[in-house]
């Protein structure tokens, strides 16, 4: 494939700085970008001259996600399997990052959402900063948190992952660090100094890299109103077995002690696609006990079922309402949680009934870290 200017690479001896370069679209990952990134990561793993990979975004955002509008357009123009090809590449890239033998440092300026989270959180070092904004907003779009979110969100403390994934809540840099989605926090003004220092050090030793980042790090204070202080309530409510029980637990909390945060939380659950909520919750629950590979294989089944559109077309409706027509008024179908049966939810987790379709094939790895393994 011809090199693209949507992904730039700066070479500095043994360090490769990958720049996501589609600033007008907030660096949303196009098919072209995902293909290029996959190519680069595969090549760098083999290349003895590469020791360290730095990832960053051009402009205001790190990356606002996968270019979903383009995917929907592709599907509309023909076969949903074009979309499947996009997600297959993206998820393989996520797996590669999660099991990579060389360190990846992601500098998370601005927006880190959806696919952007997938392209950074799986890596070894995730550096949040003052203007970082993290979110997995897929349930509002009729999709579900993919790109391995069922792995990394389900491993945040308590049931914070369910909360973040179901509501699409936005986290700032301090919150990202607190819940472990970020490994470091470096103030905005020091971020380029850190980048220079890493290039200068020219090393692939994770301990040295860690020490260098630590030198520029500071401990951010959580805002007084931070949702991270709501962990107890989140645990009480989001640990529940079903989405319905989660909402009713939240409503009970609201009866006792109504405030903006509870109201917002309930509101965002009620606005989200009922099908999305149900499949997302189950995905987190399964993901909690699985390795990252299994998570991605499952999510691939799910995303293909979503695109196939047999059981719900919420994804297309969500994209229409939020990205194309921008009326922000999606008409979900099924419209209520109680209309989404267990049978329907099950369909998203089984292999597709389609002769040309097959499960996600993860790239073979020579060195599988133990967190990537889970037996089921």
């Amino acid at each position, binding site marked *: 494939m011809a090199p693209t200017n949507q992904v730039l690479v700066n070479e500095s001896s043994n360090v490769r700085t990958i720049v996501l370069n589609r600033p007008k679209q907030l660096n949303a990952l196009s098919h072209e970008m995902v293909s290029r990134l996959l190519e680069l990561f595969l090549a760098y793993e083999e290349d003895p001259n590469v020791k360290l990979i730095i990832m960053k975004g051009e402009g205001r955002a790190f990356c606002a996600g996968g270019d979903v509008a383009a995917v929907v357009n592709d599907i509309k123009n023909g076969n949903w399997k074009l979309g499947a090809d996009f997600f297959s590449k993206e998820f393989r890239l996520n797996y590669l990052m999660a099991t990579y033998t060389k360190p990846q440092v992601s500098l998370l300026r601005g927006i880190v959402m959806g696919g952007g989270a997938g392209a950074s959180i799986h890596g070894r070092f995730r550096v949040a900063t003052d203007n970082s904004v993290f979110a997995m907003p897929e349930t509002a779009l009729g999709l579900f948190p993919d790109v391995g979110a069922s792995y990394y969100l389900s491993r945040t403390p*308590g049931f914070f992952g369910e909360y973040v994934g179901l509501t699409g809540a936005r986290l700032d840099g301090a919150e990202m660090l607190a819940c472990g989605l970020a490994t470091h926090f470096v103030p905005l003004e020091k971020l380029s100094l850190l980048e220079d220092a890493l290039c200068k050090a020219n090393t692939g030793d994770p301990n040295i890299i860690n020490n260098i980042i630590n030198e520029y790090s500071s401990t951010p204070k959580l805002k007084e109103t931070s949702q991270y202080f709501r962990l107890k309530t989140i645990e009480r409510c989001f640990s529940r077995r079903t989405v319905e029980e989660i909402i009713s637990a939240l409503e009970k909390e609201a009866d006792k002690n109504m405030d903006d945060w509870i109201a917002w939380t309930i509101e965002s659950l009620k606005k989200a696609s009922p099908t999305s909520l149900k499949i997302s919750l189950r995905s987190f629950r399964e993901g*909690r006990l699985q390795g990252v590979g299994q998570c991605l294989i499952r999510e691939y089944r799910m995303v293909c079922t979503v695109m196939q559109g047999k059981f719900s077309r919420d994804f297309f409706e969500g994209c229409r309402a939020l990205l194309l027509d921008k009326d922000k008024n999606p008409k979900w179908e099924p419209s209520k949680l109680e209309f989404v049966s267990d049978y329907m939810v099950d369909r998203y987790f089984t292999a597709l009934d389609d002769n040309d379709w097959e499960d996600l094939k993860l790239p073979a790895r020579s060195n599988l870290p133990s*967190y990537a393994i*889970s037996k089921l």
Partner: protein
Amino acid sequence: MDRVNFRTQIISNHLTTTQNNNNNHNLTTLPCINYQPPELTEPRPYFDTLLLREIIDGPMFKNNDYLFSLMKQSTLFCPRNRGGKVFIGPDYNKSMEEQREMTMKRIEYLRDQGVFDGWFDKEGYEGDLWRFSVAESVSVFDHSLGIKLGVHFFLWGGAIRFMGTKRHHDKWYKPTETYEVKGCFAMTELGHGSNVRGIETITRYDASTQEFVILTPCESAQKYWIGGAANHATHTIVFSQLEINGVNQGVHAFVAQIRDENGNICPNVRIADCGHKIGLNGVDNGRIWFDNLRIPRENLLNSVADVSPDGQYLTAIKDPDQRFAAFLAPLTSGRVTIAASAMNTTKIGLATAIRYSLSRRAFSMVPNEPEVLLLDYPSHQRRLLPLLAKTYALCFASNHLKMIYVKRTPESTKTVHVVSSALKAVLTWHCMRTLQECREACGGQGIKTENHVGHLKSEYDVQLTFEGDNNVLMQQISKALLAEFLAAKKRNKPIKGLGLEHLNKPAPIIPSQLTSSTLRTTQFQTDIFCLRERDLLHRFVTEVSQYQAQGEKSKEHIFSVTYQIAEDLGRAFSDRLILQTYLDVEATVPAGPLKDILGLMRAMYTTIVMEEDASFLRYGYLSTDNAAVVRKEVPKLCSELRPHALALVSSLGIPDAFLAPIAFNWVEANAYSSI
């Protein structure tokens, strides 16, 4: 000496390799031994591992996973990072008192997440399955947690439910569900355990105040091992002889309060601690004495018998034996959970030891060659793989027991009793034996508490004797089989039930010259297991009648001297039952890879039973020649199962977090940098 030279050679090789590395700039430091995850080195699963997991976990596997996930997410369950993975498990280095408090806190956490909501409301067999699933899943984390919960919900709650009537349900269900009332179950005494009918606590009725008066008349009557009594329980079920107007009406159950809402022990009750135990220290076992404790008349659990306000004893079941049996029958649920928990624990042991054996190497076959994986040694395969196949067989049997329990009818009481006795004994023995083998198979790593396998032995040892001593249970099976046989003979009708119908057919013929392929046929396996059961039952009948012919009157005495054959028969019955349930499961699986594997494991199970149980040779079901064929088949089966070992332990369905560091990257988990 050769050996020594050989080792020296290996060591010096290590040293020279390291030196070479230092001169080579392209290579970073290479540790001597790298952890290789078996997922990378083992063949891909030949069958659908998820499907097999659904079969052995049964219809509630999603609920199990939900509970696993709840436990994994709470800091109360002590998450620890080892080698890049999070493991949870109690801190057994804490004092007994601290362990008890942690157990209680974990229960409160589960309660607060709504895990017990609707405990008594969920109806039908699905409700039963759900309750079992809760108890079993928490036991995977810690036996103490499972037992503490089991005492409260299954023993205390079960007694209220099954032995009590509406007035008890209305009063106790709700506070039990919320733990406002913490229940315990005072049956066992210092002087009487398995023999419940011999307990000495006495309860008399005082018509003038309409109260019962409970008395511990002597030291041997003190209630003993009462889980929950030492620290937390506020109420207890008391088992006691009921004496009405000087007449003993046999054992009955009462509800008594033993602590007030502030946790102070009530007047006329004395409580002491059972002290530190070899395991299960998260359960506060206590001893209780009753000093003429008065309780209201309504506190008699009156499902089968009642006492009227004026002190008349009323019951619909006149025969005290039948009354007692009807009374205790619903409590069989204890054995169902014990059997299932024994299997889960066995799974933890095997998954850990087999995963370790797929990444740990020892000794080279040829100098300078890599050392050999433990599980590539035929002897190591022989130690672990038959236990793995047997575990699958016993899991199917445990599921069968659960199903006949939850779908029980008055007619099936006897079957449930016999099957639960048999499987409780066989499964718990299998659990202990497997844990011991797994602990040895892990070498020194097996004795580290954080690696579970060794420690679980002491945590689970108690299961061999509680809810019925295993040896006593095995003898009870033979007694029940004898009774069935004699009853059928007396009625001159074919024998029915307990799977004994094969006795009505002519005795199966065993081929005089066994071959490997015969050993693997369902026909042969069924034939020889049936032959053994049938012959032993006939021998037992003959031996008992010989004693009777000699003039021995006491049946109990006869049973006490015929224990040898009774035990052989008990085993024969259990093995045949297990094979039958295995075949039933197999029949539900369509032809394909999974069915092939199930067939292979069945062959392993039956072959190993024949190899290990002396009765096949002792009574001549196998000739010495055939026994040799059986023995030769074992290593063959082991090598055929070997490629499936990883997939088979994956299907056991224990989440990684509940296994141990040695099951994964044990090099990194032990690295100096991880201290």
